[in-house]
């Protein structure tokens, strides 16, 4: 089978899964939906492996394969809208990450969502998400990219609002959707800017046009296009200032947070910049913007994560922060480093979310760190997974996060100039990462066991008398599920255990494929995609690399030590710290007031403008004149038309002749 056939199959299986689960939800029953959902993604993963081996069979210069299934609208020189895919190392890499992680998360969901009423609906959505994400990463032109981009936004909305009786969940879904649509608009407009001068929607054709100087003399258009595309990337990847939807998106089921809002969808922005690197290299201003925004995001999100108490939100801010690293990397030109971190992050972040889901199960749905403590003995497996994920996230060697984060920072430092500032901030962020990660671990697992943990030690899973929404304490509507009245923990469910173990292995060893001066598996693999990049041969010197590794290790351990000191060695000292850094704490715990700022700067002015317009413009002009006026004009016209429709033949003939006379008169006048 050819490489592209494998890739088409990768798309086919999740689509089939969506259709079967979506249409047959009544017939399938519980086991069926989960099995079909998981198996379809598993098959997609197998086909992705097939594509990988098939691709490696080609020589390095011929590893960019396109295949078009159908020409939607192709005209000479204007539009070439095709249903086409591009199979190259980058898309295969993304395909493997997406299908691999998705398979495990589907497996996890089989147990985790067991108590939920909308089981088949859940798997239909989840399969649809994977399909959309694969369209996004496999699409061979801007059109497919936009389609995939919008589809994942829709899938994300559906899954965030999955428990649709929760007011908070539907609000979060709407917020996510609106912000993502802002991004979609940016992406589409950016595409127009690019298309206008490149004359093609095809990626490879666009890159050829860029290298061939299609934008010579139109540099402004290229920069504007790239900046607009960045708006799309920022919205999807939750970068400042379009990040506020991601923490709220934690309203979705935990496996969803794990898959969509940590491992895959939110990294789409990183993929986008890497995919379009020829454009961004031709427009350095846009690339620099990406690097700076990524850096700002990683710092701000890190500080917010320090103060949050909802365990999922801590991980969500951590995700933002880590994606900040990736965006900074690809913005600076370190595509391989960014994508490497994308993969390792997918492993350890998905693992952390799964472990968090397990704790939430043990807490009977509660998510606040204030209530959790001492789960170390009662949940040894979850604890182990959390520690592995935490070590990888903090960048402790030899866990995966260590190598990937180090590679990013070494590359950024190597760029020199003002990038040194980003380099420094990156290390500050690394320190913060260690602190907030271990703050979470120490608070949840150390200390006196809480009531739920004690109950679990007695072999019994805690049950809430009245299930409540952890966000606002409202009583849940158990008819449509919510995390299910029956909770599950990893210790008691084999599928969850298998999924988490595999991810834990990945989080531990995935970094070993790319050790400076030892091996370069990912660099070599992705080489054909980035061969035309001007940074392809940029590599940090040995001194910088080893210094960075040492510094990273020291900062990670220091961060863990600090967290240990505050939350384990001297319990209660957190309050003193809070009092000492009151202004900073207020800033961080209120998430730097971004929601309030957006409310003040965007929502309120628009709302005020809207109210004002409704009172004046709409009431007078629209309702009074346009609507009433138009409808009465149309109504009058309608009755006038019907009035001359008398049914009397002589009038018809007369009107015909009258009209004829009118036409004739026009011609006579125009002739003279």
């Amino acid at each position, binding site marked *: 089978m050819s490489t592209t056939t494998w890739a088409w199959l990768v798309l086919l299986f999740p689509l089939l899964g969506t259709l079967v689960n979506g249409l047959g939800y009544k017939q399938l029953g519980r086991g069926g939906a989960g099995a079909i959902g998981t198996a379809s993604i598993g098959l997609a993963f197998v086909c992705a492996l097939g594509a990988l081996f098939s691709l490696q069979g080609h020589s390095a210069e011929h590893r960019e394969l396109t295949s078009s299934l159908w020409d*939607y609208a192709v005209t000479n020189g204007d539009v070439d809208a095709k249903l086409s895919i591009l199979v190259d190392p980058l898309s295969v890499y993304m395909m493997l990450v997406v299908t691999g992680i998705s398979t495990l998360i589907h497996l996890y969901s089989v147990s985790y969502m067991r108590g939920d009423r909308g089981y088949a609906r859940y798997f239909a959505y989840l399969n649809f998400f994977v399909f959309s994400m694969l369209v996004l990463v496999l699409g061979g032109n801007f059109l497919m990219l936009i389609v995939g981009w919008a589809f994942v936004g829709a899938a994300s909305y559906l899954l965030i609002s999955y428990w649709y009786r929760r007011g908070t969940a539907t609000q979060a879904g709407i917020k996510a959707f609106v912000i993502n649509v802002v991004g979609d608009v940016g992406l589409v407009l950016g595409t127009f800017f690019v298309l206008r001068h490149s004359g093609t929607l095809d990626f490879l054709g666009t890159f050829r046009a860029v290298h061939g100087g299609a934008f010579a003399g139109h540099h402004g258009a290229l920069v504007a296009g790239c900046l607009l595309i960045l708006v799309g990337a920022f919205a999807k990847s939750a970068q400042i200032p379009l990040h506020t939807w991601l923490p709220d998106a934690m309203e979705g089921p935990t496996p969803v947070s794990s898959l969509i809002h940590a491992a895959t969808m939110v990294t789409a922005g990183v993929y986008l910049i890497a995919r379009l690197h020829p454009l961004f290299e031709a427009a350095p201003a846009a690339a620099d913007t990406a690097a700076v925004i990524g850096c700002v995001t990683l710092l701000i999100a890190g500080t917010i994560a320090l103060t949050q108490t909802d365990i999922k939100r801590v991980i969500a801010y951590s995700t933002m922060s880590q994606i900040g690293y990736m965006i900074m990397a690809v913005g600076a030109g370190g595509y391989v480093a960014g994508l490497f971190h994308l993969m390792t992050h997918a492993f350890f972040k998905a693992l952390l979310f799964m472990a968090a889901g397990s704790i939430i199960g043990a807490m009977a749905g509660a998510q606040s760190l204030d209530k959790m403590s001492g789960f170390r003995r009662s949940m040894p497996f979850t604890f182990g997974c959390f520690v592995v994920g935490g070590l990888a996230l903090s960048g402790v060697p030899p866990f995966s996060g260590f190598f990937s984060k180090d590679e990013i920072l070494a590359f950024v430092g190597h760029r020199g100039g003002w990038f040194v500032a980003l380099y420094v901030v990156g290390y500050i962020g690394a320190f913060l990462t260690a602190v907030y990660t271990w703050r979470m671990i120490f608070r949840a697992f150390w200390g006196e066991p809480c009531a739920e943990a004690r109950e679990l030690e007695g072999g019994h899973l805690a049950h809430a008398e009245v299930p409540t929404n952890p966000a606002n304490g409202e009583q849940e509507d158990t008819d449509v599920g919510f995390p299910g009245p029956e909770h599950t923990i990893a210790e008691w469910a084999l599928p969850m255990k298998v999924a988490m173990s595999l991810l834990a292995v990945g989080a531990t060893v995935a970094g070993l494929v790319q050790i400076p001066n030892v091996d370069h598996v990912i660099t070599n693999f992705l080489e054909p995609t980035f061969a035309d990049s001007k940074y392809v041969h940029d590599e940090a010197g040995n001194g910088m690399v080893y210094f960075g590794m040492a510094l990273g290790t020291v900062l990670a351990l220091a961060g863990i030590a600090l967290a240990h000191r505050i939350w384990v060695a001297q319990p209660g000292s957190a309050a003193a710290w809070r009092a000492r850094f009151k202004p900073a704490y207020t800033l961080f715990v209120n998430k730097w007031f971004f929601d309030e700022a957006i409310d003040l700067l965007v929502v309120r002015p628009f709302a005020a403008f809207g109210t004002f317009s409704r009172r004046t413009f709409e009431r007078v002009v629209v309702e009074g004149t346009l609507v009433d006026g138009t409808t009465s004009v*149309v109504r009058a016209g309608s009755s006038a038309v019907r009035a001359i429709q008398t049914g009397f033949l002589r009038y018809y003939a007369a*009107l*015909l002749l009258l009209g004829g006379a009118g036409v004739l008169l026009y011609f*006579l006048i125009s002739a003279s």
Partner: protein
Amino acid sequence: MNALVTAAAHAKAPHIDYAGLSPFIALTAGAILTLLIGLARGRWVRHATPLLAIVTLGAAIGLGIWQFGEATSLVSGALLADDLTWTLLFAFAGAGIGATLLAWRSHAAQEASPGEFFSLLLFSVLGMAILVAATNLVTLFLGFELLSIPLYVLCATELRRERSLESGLKYLIVGSVGSATLVYGLALIYGATGSTDYAGIDKAIASGAGVGGDVLLLSGVGLTLVGLAFKASVAPFHQWTPDVYEGAPTPVTAFMAVATKAAALGVLLRLFDSALIGSQHDWAPMLAALAAITIVVGNVGALGQTSLKRMLAYSGVAQAGYLLAGVIVGSQLGAKATVFYLVVYLAMNLAAFAVVVARERANPADGDDLAGFAGLGRTQPSLAWPLTIAMLALAGIPATAGFIGKVFLIDALVDGDYAWLAIVLVIGSMISLGYYLRVVATMWMREAPTATTTGVPVIAGGSQEADAAARPQPEVLLVAWLAAAATIVLGIVPQPLFDLAADAGRALTGIF
């Protein structure tokens, strides 16, 4: 004597291109055969004649496909058998097949004797084919009358229904005025250019001998325009449309709505974009004004209608305005867009009329009353879906062919510097949502009336079993679903039809 023999030997018999003529011959032969079979006695005639009509139309399509791609001049320049002719012939024959299926078990065909009914239908299709193939003013008029006269009769085929007779008579009288105007116009054009041949007219206009701006020619163009606009029900010559559509038997209405319109637009395209293209700057603004009036009048008139057939009549008026857009710009793009939209229009309307036919069969009293469609989505989804698709497509909702067709028309208008008309078109579409969506809403969002539709109490002879048995006939459903499916498929995969339309457009060699 000797001289006579030599003369006879020298006189060449006219060359007849039987291959090029074959679709016309097939239609003629089929029509006559249908008429003859109709004379036979026995119940089998009821089914044999429509079957024969379908076979004839199918044969015409097949022969057209065989001849596709060649441009041959037939009967010493009277007809031109090119891709435009064949593409439109496919449309006419398709509409004919649809109408035949709808009429198969109708009152109209039985009352008027099926042989006559279907034979007239075939003659009308033949007239349409000749009309659009004509490259001579005389042939044009011949085709025009061959199209019209069978239709006058067909409208009146429900002999026992007063409305049907009225509709036939009205159509005949108003149609005669239209024909008279047309023939007067054609005569003036001949007088101005000295030729009845399209090529000759084109040459005379292009020669620059002052013919282009000649009063005589322009008067002729104006009158011809009126005559053809009448057939295409372009406002203000549309008056007959709602009355005739409402009164005529519904299968005939369906045929008139799609095929007649396609023929009128086809001949407008052929005449104005080839013979009269030289004076385009004279007639285009007039035609654009007519198109704008048509769009407004059609859409506004449709708003208050309660009868679905009348509403579709007005909607047809509006759609004729959209279709004119492609003629006005006089470009390849415009011709393509018009042909594309014609085919799409055919599918959309056939679906809608098929549903009306099915409803009328179940409820003869007021089957096309919009109120009767309430709750159809729940009671008869097999009818509600095609009508929904047709309405959405007519309104131009994306993912239907109606959307793509309008996009092409707007593209052609903007390309041809008639952006203002494109805006009128869009505004017209906006207004049209008001009545198309009303139908959809009635079907899906209103409760079905609880009383039995017959209005006869159970005790008085009505029975629910009998009502339930009044299921739509399979051939009517087939038409509805095929047309609806075509509407959707062409909306998602427009390329094949667009290629066909492009071939048809290329047949008009005078425009670019």
